[in-house]
């Protein structure tokens, strides 16, 4: 895409793109290339020299039961976060689209978690569920439920899922609401005159027209669950207990920064890059198709 009328300039356009290109080259392409490079190298025990080992790091990563376990945790975590962030958001958006009174109050209040950092969201939920401290944890104990996410891996996973989904709910709500408000009211009124009830209208008109938004949010939420939730995991569980909440991005951090395994961590980074590129490609394919119809 290009404008018909443009300015003349030989040097000026290069000067204008230079700052962004410089930052992109130094902090995107160089590190990405390094990740690919280090993923094919093995460091000696002292980190002094490296040798080329081909795909050995990748083979080691995929042969590592810890990595496969982390994949499994990530799959459960991201599907649960996505569903838990999307379904209530859709319900609330449909309701907010219907009401007239207090509409802006609801909207403003539901927007708030968007401003909360994932790590802080984790701290908020930790404060509710910390055994012996949080009021929800105490209530659970009073009900006779043995709640201790510091020891129980499933409970820990549940807690980080809820905290991560809570933060992302706002984002989904805002997009669903915008999508709903873009649906022509005349369409719904026509269906109403034809005798279609509320649920039928929702299923046959609203949901299909909302599907681009839904798909977009699905990809965004999966990417969010894969990467941005690092703060939740790090602040609440630190990947534990016994790796029950170690999602892939946490493992990249843990192996690379704490474990100092540069080759393995880089190989994991490269795997993650491929996943993001695939997700983005799928999304763009879909968005493009949408533009044509």
């Amino acid at each position: 895409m290009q404008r018909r009328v443009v300015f003349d300039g030989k040097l000026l356009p290069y000067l204008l793109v230079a700052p962004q290109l410089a930052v992109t080259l130094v902090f995107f392409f160089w590190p990405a290339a390094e990740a690919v490079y280090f993923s094919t190298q093995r460091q000696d025990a002292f980190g002094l020299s490296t040798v080329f080992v081909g795909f050995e790091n990748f083979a080691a990563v995929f042969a590592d039961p810890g990595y496969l376990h982390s994949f499994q945790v990530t799959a459960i975590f991201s599907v649960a976060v996505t569903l838990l962030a999307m379904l209530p958001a859709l319900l609330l958006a449909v309701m907010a689209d219907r009401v007239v009174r207090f509409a802006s109050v609801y909207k403003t209040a539901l927007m708030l978690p968007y401003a909360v950092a994932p790590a802080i969201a984790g701290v908020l939920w930790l404060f509710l569920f910390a055994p012996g401290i949080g009021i929800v944890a105490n209530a659970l104990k009073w009900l006779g439920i043995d709640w201790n996410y510091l020891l129980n891996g499933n409970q820990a996973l549940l807690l980080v899922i809820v905290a991560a989904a809570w933060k992302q709910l706002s984002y989904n709500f805002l997009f669903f609401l915008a999508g709903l408000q873009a649906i022509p009211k005349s369409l719904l009124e026509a269906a109403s005159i034809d005798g279609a009830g509320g649920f039928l209208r929702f299923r046959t008109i609203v949901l299909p027209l909302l599907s681009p938004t839904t798909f977009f949010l699905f990809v965004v939420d999966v990417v969010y669950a894969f990467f941005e939730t690092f703060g939740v995991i790090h602040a609440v569980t630190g990947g534990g207990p016994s790796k029950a909440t170690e999602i892939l991005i946490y493992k990249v951090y843990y192996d690379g920064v704490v474990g100092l395994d540069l080759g393995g961590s880089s190989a994991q980074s490269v795997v993650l890059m491929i996943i993001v590129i695939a997700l983005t490609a799928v999304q763009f394919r879909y968005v493009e198709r949408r533009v044509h119809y």
Partner: protein
Amino acid sequence: MESRSGHLSWLPHLILVLGLALVGFPIYVTFVGSTMTTPEILSGHMSLIPGGHFVENYLAALTQGMPQLSGVPVARLMLNSLIMALSIALGKMLISFLSAYAIVFFRFPGRMVCFWMIFLTLMLPVEVRIVPTFQVTANLGLIDTYGGLAIPLIASATATLLFRQFFLTIPDELIEAARLDGAGPLRFLWDVLLPLSRTNLAALFVILFVYGWNQYLWPLLVTNTASMTTLVVGIKSMLTVDANTPWHLVMAMAILAMAPPAAVVLLMQRWFVKGLVDAEK
């Protein structure tokens, strides 16, 4: 529809109020915790009515040196967060505005290469290439500096794409008129394009400020001394595993960490919602 016909008109309100309660509950309890003393919180039957230590706790958090943070007070961490968030937001806006301007309003060899190079960065969130990016930053001597906190995060395809989209809608007549009046490209940028982009800039500022303030993994890696870390990262150091966690201060810190981005979102709500939905489509 239901609301017009009258029956069940209370149902959406009920669901929304329940939704609000669920969304607001963790924030409310945290606020309540921030107005109590730690023994009150740990008593096992914490009240849901705010306590009487609001001023005391926030004053202590802001001004007192925290032993868990090597004696640095929270006010310093807030300052670091603010500097980081503002540098990221304004830096991204500046370099994206300029590069989008060059790509849309000029024709020069390598234009598409530049566009694609910027576009590709969409696909590589900082978390993915975290360890090598850290090494590059360390090699440049940027550990424990504001530059190290902000610069690696200011390249963004999203902002560039948003500006590009908007610039493509500027009518050709405007440029022709500007040229007839003898305005050069920089004059046009400053006097015509910048004022026209006000709404986009405001929306982008909200999104990027929140993004910058809420960063976690990057500041965690790139700062080693407590006096250079950010508030969002600093909270984690307060949560010690033993029973010595000063919960009243942690809760005050959590509220302080939420307040600035929430204020920016609420005050600039009108532009933010429009911009968010436009930016991502």
